[in-house]
């Protein structure tokens, strides 16, 4: 294979589809009750050193409860895949959970600013980084979902992003044109928050799916957190709506308001006040530790976190904001 150019960063995951196939060969296919708690799912499927990917888009439809649990479980040396990752990345940096990251967008919080703590972590030199773009990561997941070792795109051509990636430039066998070969990535575990799931893991998502359909298919294990559980009749009555079928899923955790303080489309808006508190607290490392103790480490459940942040009154406000209802 004639390789025209290649990125210098190491690949964190093996792109061999036959190794992935061997894993998937053994993955159970029966429809069984997969409900468990946040803690059980983290204990079972997210060990130290595993390679993690988070669904949603930064502070939209993110599985906050599992992220908090990962911090409380003091997980270390995780790999991470992040297209636009904002509050999720901020949390994992806060917990010093990360070791090597495939990234397209980190540290930043979109219009909210930049995370001072995540920036400190990323400037410390302790984290191995491989650069990609949002689409490049999407293609990597898509290739894995397709059971092949690479996908092609024209992202990154000509740029330093390519140089600091793990991609290779190849020639099209039909046109001679250059394309970037993007290695498939099968994350060890993906955590995805959805609107509805049945106890088997058949899921509905309303609104944008970001890269979660590819992610659910690429990941070896999938933990679903769901705003609500639904009866399987709700799945079978309209199978067109199913976006993640049960056989991809290993754990189903019911977490109402599970994307808080992030936005959950059609359910509740983001809590900008609380997200601003994060930014403020992060400025001073000492203050930040107290903040984390208060909101995560000394908290025993996601419900308790929701109560700390304002409970039902706050959640009702966020529902109104989402629905664009004034009062």
């Amino acid at each position: 294979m004639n390789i025209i150019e290649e990125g210098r960063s190491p690949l964190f995951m093996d792109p061999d589809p036959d190794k992935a196939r061997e894993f998937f060969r053994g993955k159970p296919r029966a429809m069984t009750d997969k409900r468990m708690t946040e803690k059980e799912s983290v204990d079972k499927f997210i060990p130290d050193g595993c390679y993690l990917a988070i669904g949603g888009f930064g502070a939209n439809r993110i599985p906050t409860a599992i992220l908090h649990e990962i911090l409380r479980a003091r997980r270390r040396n995780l790999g991470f895949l992040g297209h636009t990752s904002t509050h999720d990345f901020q949390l994992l940096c806060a917990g010093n959970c990360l070791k090597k990251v495939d990234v397209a967008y980190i540290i930043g919080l979109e219009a909210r600013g930049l995370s001072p703590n995540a920036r400190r972590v990323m400037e410390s030199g302790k984290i191995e980084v491989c650069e990609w773009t949002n689409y490049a990561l999407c293609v990597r997941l898509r290739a894995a979902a397709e059971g092949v070792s690479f996908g092609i795109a024209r992202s990154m051509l000509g740029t330093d992003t390519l140089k600091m990636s793990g991609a290779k430039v190849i020639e099209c066998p039909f046109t001679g044109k250059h394309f970037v070969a993007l290695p498939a990535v099968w994350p060890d575990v993906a955590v995805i928050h959805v609107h509805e799931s049945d106890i088997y893991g058949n899921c509905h998502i309303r609104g944008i799916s970001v890269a979660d359909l590819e992610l659910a298919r690429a990941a070896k294990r999938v933990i679903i957190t769901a705003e609500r559980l639904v009866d399987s009749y709700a799945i079978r009555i309209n199978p067109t709506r199913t976006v993640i079928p049960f056989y991809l899923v290993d754990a189903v955790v019911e977490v109402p308001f599970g994307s808080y303080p992030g936005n959950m489309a059609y359910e509740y808006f983001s809590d900008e006040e609380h997200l601003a508190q994060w930014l403020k607290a992060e400025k001073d490392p000492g203050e930040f530790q107290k903040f984390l103790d208060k909101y995560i480490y000394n908290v025993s459940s996601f419900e308790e976190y929701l109560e700390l942040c304002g409970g039902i009154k706050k959640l009702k406000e966020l529902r109104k904001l989402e629905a664009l209802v004034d009062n």
Partner: protein
Amino acid sequence: MVTAAYNKMEMMICTAARFLEDGTTVAVGTGAPCAAAMLAQKVNAPNLVIIFEAGGLAPLLPQMPISVGDSRTFFRGIMAAGMNEMMTTCCRGMVDFAFLGGAQIDKYGNINSTVIGDYHKPKVRFPGSGGANDFASFCWRTMIIAVQNQSRFVEHVDFVTSPGYLSGPGAREDAGLPAGSGPYKIITDLAVMGFHPESKEMMVESIHQGVELRDIMQNTGFSPVISESIKTTPPPSDTELKVLREEVDPCRYIIGRK
């Protein structure tokens, strides 16, 4: 009541909006690019189709999104899909404009949003490409809104995150990027710059009212080409300012306090 007075951000957004043609597609980020697209839709380009990289298509935006993935980006939208859908739409050549920002820009319109300093020991780490590299690679015409100063407009960016014309004429095509795409306009608080059709170097096309050419030179880390037919940028109209202030950004998140 709207007056002729306006701030720099308002000037930039109003100017940017005018470049968005009716019946075209534009991929935008949050902040000023999104404000410009919303303004264009309400003033000069009612059939502008706004695309968000996380999956939102053509929403009836009730307010400025905070994130390109928040629920506003597909509020009463035409489609709520995913990143693959939106990015491949760009890849196919169906997206006319991209709207980006960046920490550094060089004379060929290359953008750095990754690091200042050495990559492995960065002085400052920025977020990275996100979808910017993809948009700058695939959309036909890339526009950038940025405040102009010497540390931002540099001879060489520390890191080419997203491609402009790379090292000059033909370099995009040589690298394998789609033919005919590239940077189009840079809208700053001082001027509008395009790119010289042959040399692909940044070229001052119009200067905002009250700005002198030497202000531009002093705030640019390289010598831009000066267009032979250099113009004065028309100031925001009363209509533009009114719509921007009252409909696009009534809370003044982007345009700031008066």
